[in-house]
């Protein structure tokens, strides 16, 4: 099971590369925001996965909660900011 979880973590890292392509390439700023949102979701899953692999989920789960909340604050700030000024 542990090897399977390692494989799953590896797969998610590859998926993060796909989202990173959208963050770097994306024609508008909103594409980058959406890509960043996807990356943060993958990061939360990856943190819980790493905790499961190390069998110390109790340490890692608190960080992922903080991640999720801060992601909300950051993305809403970006959205508010872009809504005010228009975009390029």
């Amino acid at each position, binding site marked *: 099971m542990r090897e399977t979880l390692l494989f799953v973590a*590896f797969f998610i890292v590859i998926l993060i*590369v796909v989202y*990173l392509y959208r963050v*770097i390439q994306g024609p508008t*700023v909103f594409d980058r925001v959406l890509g*960043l949102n996807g990356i943060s979701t993958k990061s939360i899953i990856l943190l819980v996965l*790493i905790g499961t692999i190390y069998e110390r989920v109790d340490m890692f789960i608190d*960080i992922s909660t903080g991640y999720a909340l801060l992601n909300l604050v*950051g993305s809403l*700030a970006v959205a508010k900011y872009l809504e005010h000024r228009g975009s390029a």
Partner: protein
Amino acid sequence: MIFPVEIFLLLLLVITAGAAILVKDLISAVLILGSYSFFLAIVWAWFGAVDVAFVESVVGAGLATVFFLLTLFVTAPKDTRIHPPSPPWTALIGLPLLGLLLLYAASDLPKFGDPASPASVHVSPVYLENSMEDTLTPNVVTSILMDYRAFDTLIETVVIFTAGIACALLLRRNRT
């Protein structure tokens, strides 16, 4: 277990850092730096440094992105695209040499998690053996920061709190 997930993560770190420098738009550079912080926090968590990962995710990915964006919102003109000047040739030659020198020096460092390295034989065993019965805290890093070095942490918090008060006093808007 040797599994090269962390090598891919470090590669992603290099890619995001380069992209944040090379991208033309300031907002995009800020967002790419946010993803850089995410990758860095995952690398810390992969190596088991949970506290550092937490600080990196809170400060780097959350607060720094919001502060950068607020600064851009207040200061930057409508068109935030930048035209960077070409770097001087001394930097192009000197910085790779410095990097090679640092890599050469890094080959002398002890291995990751080596129990015989100088950092883990001096005072670390004392803390590791006594922290549970001294402080009744399962996390050793927390017990060192909050118990053995409590005054240090307290004064650090006072300094940061003072800085925050000063910023709030200087930057507040006068509502007349």
